[in-house]
């Protein structure tokens, strides 16, 4: 951690003092589109598409500037304004540009910009296109706040912002009940994670008096182990919510209800990586809390296997990709849970995954575009000939995700498996198994979608997508292919200042010096082979076969975790609610109604005196008079 403490951010000067523009540009885009109303219908989407590219260009300038500085000075802090000043609390909105945040900045704006471009084609005929682009810009702005913040409190603002944008975009087709429900589910499940993050921030504020990264990092070593472990676990809960890790992953599969570019942007390339960012950013906390760190690694492994399992069983192309996203983010969490040795690989895999997963999701969108929005892979088959560009770009993404040497995924995933094996052999072997399963389900997807015989529904005439859609695909495919070679020898040393350990002698060539790299390749090829034997050699039935192994059934039901939530947590809440309702009906209501009944009964007794006979009233008056007289006389006597 000594390296980490020497990286003291310098105050922003020159071009760096305009860093707030990075966030302000997409935010202004969102404001113009959402507040401008129908007046911006015609040109709004184009303006919105320019916004992330503008931020990207600015980010690229900052990246080049940081690159030109010595490693120990690659951190710039740009205070924007004082947010809260109350007593001894001072919270500043400040932007931190360091190797980690710049890597995210370029990923978010670069891939985000390409997805904006793709959406111009994909959403061309949607009546609410303007609103869609407004939300997309809002998302980019929120994500940039998240990754550029220099303290946890501002990070939390971005964290909630992406949650909001995600909710708005998942339920974008709000007229569909399933989309509305999926948006709500994502929002609510994310709240659970947010609670964890909030508790972590509160603890930091109580312990350090500040939530600034530099203060927290410096103070972590002096804090009592119990508190550090608590913060670590709470940060993990937050990361689980946002990054769709077991057990808070259930929202991600439903989030596929949103338009496909959203799935690509938010639920594959950027937002779901926020949890990984959080863990890597909190490296100093985890360095002091080995238990929390191990928990991160275990959550990662469980998720990578669970996601792969779900991916194997689904027929919906987007759900397979969603399962695979879970699984790949599981890899990143695993790497982040290994500690400094894994940080570089976590971020490396995050970047390569951002490219190849966005590529494949957009490819899936292109396939859906060609087949009247059908997502069932059993209705595809033989699309390779009809959609050559989509097939080739998707194929590159496929080779990257399963980890074929020279493709980007191979470098990062091999690195994670190797690092995991070095730290905990059991984790490494499970991650290795995950790599085999990944190869299996991705091969299944390719075989069912692009190869084999045609199983198209009647009236479907697949055709290549318009240029606006395939250009981003080509760019992303190029990234999926060569990003690994470009970054492999460099990313470790780039991230070293933020606490990562650079792997030794990494070059642009695949590294087969460790025996485990060979094993990974063999396992991957076995996975591909099994998938080919099962799905490539015999026709795929148009309806899902019913007589399947329990493994498939469990996978088709998302491992029954939703059911467990409904029966366990929701069931308990229902029971509690019924109990409260019972008390309300038989306790509170009984008391209130009893009061009424008593009054009524008293009334029915007392009303007898009001019989309507004048003489009885007269008699009453007489008795009253006599009584008053007697009292008067008696008191006179005394």
């Amino acid at each position, binding site marked *: 951690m000594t390296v980490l403490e020497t990286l003291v951010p310098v105050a922003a000067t020159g071009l760096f003092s305009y860093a707030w523009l990075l966030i302000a540009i997409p935010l202004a885009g969102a404001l113009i589109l959402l507040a401008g109303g129908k007046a911006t219908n015609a040109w709004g989407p184009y303006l919105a598409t320019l916004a992330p590219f503008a931020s990207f260009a600015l980010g690229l300038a900052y990246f080049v500037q940081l690159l030109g500085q010595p490693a120990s000075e690659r951190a710039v802090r740009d205070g924007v304004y004082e947010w809260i000043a109350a007593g001894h609390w001072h919270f500043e909105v400040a932007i931190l540009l360091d190797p980690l945040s710049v890597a995210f900045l370029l990923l978010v704006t670069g891939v985000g910009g390409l997805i904006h471009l793709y959406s111009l084609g994909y959403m061309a005929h949607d009546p609410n296109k303007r609103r869609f682009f407004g939300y997309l810009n809002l998302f980019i702005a929120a994500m940039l706040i998240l990754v550029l913040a220099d303290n946890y409190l501002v990070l939390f603002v971005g964290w909630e912002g992406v949650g909001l944008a995600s909710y708005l975009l998942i339920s974008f087709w709000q007229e569909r009940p399933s989309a509305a429900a999926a948006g709500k589910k994502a929002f609510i499940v994310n709240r659970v994670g947010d609670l964890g993050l909030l508790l972590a921030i509160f603890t930091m504020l109580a312990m350090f008096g500040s939530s600034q990264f530099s203060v927290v990092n410096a103070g972590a070593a002096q804090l009592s182990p119990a508190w550090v472990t608590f913060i670590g676990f709470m940060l993990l809960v937050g990361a689980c919510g946002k990054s769709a890790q077991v057990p808070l992953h259930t929202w991600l599969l439903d989030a596929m209800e949103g338009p496909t570019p959203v799935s690509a942007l938010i639920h594959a390339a950027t937002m779901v990586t926020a949890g990984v960012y959080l863990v890597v950013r909190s490296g100093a906390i985890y360095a002091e809390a080995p238990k929390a760190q191990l928990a991160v690694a275990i959550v990662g492994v469980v998720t990578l296997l669970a996601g792969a399992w779900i991916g194997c069983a689904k027929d919906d192309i987007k759900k397979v990709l969603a399962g695979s996203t879970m699984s790949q983010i599981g890899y990143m969490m695993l790497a982040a849970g290994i500690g400094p040795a894994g940080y570089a690989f976590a971020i490396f895999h995050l970047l390569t995954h951002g490219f190849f997963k966005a590529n494949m999701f957009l490819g899936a969108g292109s396939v859906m575009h060609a087949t009247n929005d059908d997502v069932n892979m059993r209705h595809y088959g033989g699309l390779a000939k009809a959609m050559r560009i989509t097939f080739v770009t998707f194929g590159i993404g496929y080779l990257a995700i399963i980890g074929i040497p020279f493709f980007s995924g191979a470098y990062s995933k091999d690195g994670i498996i190797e690092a995991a094996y070095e730290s905990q052999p059991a984790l490494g072997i499970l991650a290795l198994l995950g790599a085999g399963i990944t190869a299996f389900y991705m091969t299944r997807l390719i075989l069912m979608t692009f190869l084999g015989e045609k199983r198209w529904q009647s009236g479907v005439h697949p055709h290549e997508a318009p240029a606006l859609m395939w250009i981003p695909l080509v760019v992303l495919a190029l990234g999926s292919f060569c990003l690994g070679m470009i970054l492999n020898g460099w990313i470790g040393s780039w991230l070293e200042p933020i606490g990562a350990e650079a792997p030794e002698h990494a070059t642009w060539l695949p590294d087969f010096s460790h025996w485990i790299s060979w094993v990974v390749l063999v396992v991957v090829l076995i996975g591909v082979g099994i998938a080919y034997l099962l799905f490539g050699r015999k026709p795929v039935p148009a309806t899902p076969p019913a007589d399947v192994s329990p493994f498939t059934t469990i996978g088709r039901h998302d491992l029954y975790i939703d059911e467990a939530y409904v029966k366990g947590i929701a069931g308990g809440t229902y029971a509690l609610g019924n109990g409260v309702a019972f008390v309300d009906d038989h306790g509170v209501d009984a008391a209130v109604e009893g009061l009424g009944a008593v009054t009524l009964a008293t009334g029915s007794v007392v*009303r007898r005196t*009001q*019989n*309507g*006979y*004048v*003489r009885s009233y*007269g*008699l009453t008056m*007489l008795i009253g008079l006599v009584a008053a007289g007697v009292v008067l006389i008696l008191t006179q006597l005394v």
Partner: protein
Amino acid sequence: MTPDLYLVLAAILFTIGLVGFLIRRNALILFMSTELMLNAANLVLVSASWVHGVLDGQVAAFFVMVVAAAEVVIGLSIIVTIFRARRSTSVDNESLLKG
């Protein structure tokens, strides 16, 4: 001279009025009984005034008479209205407003 006989007479008048009020049903008789009780009270006031040699009681008696006259005006008009509507002045029948 003592006012005993006046007081006894007043007591007798008041009792007659009271009993009449309690046992009769005819609204007119009830009214008359009420007047009787008021006048019994007047008698007590006047005799007390006479015994003490001051005019307070007599003034009070005039007030009572004025109130009684006003009451008779309203009371009789109500009774006449009821009689027109129901052809009866029995107060036992007039119990429509009972709870």
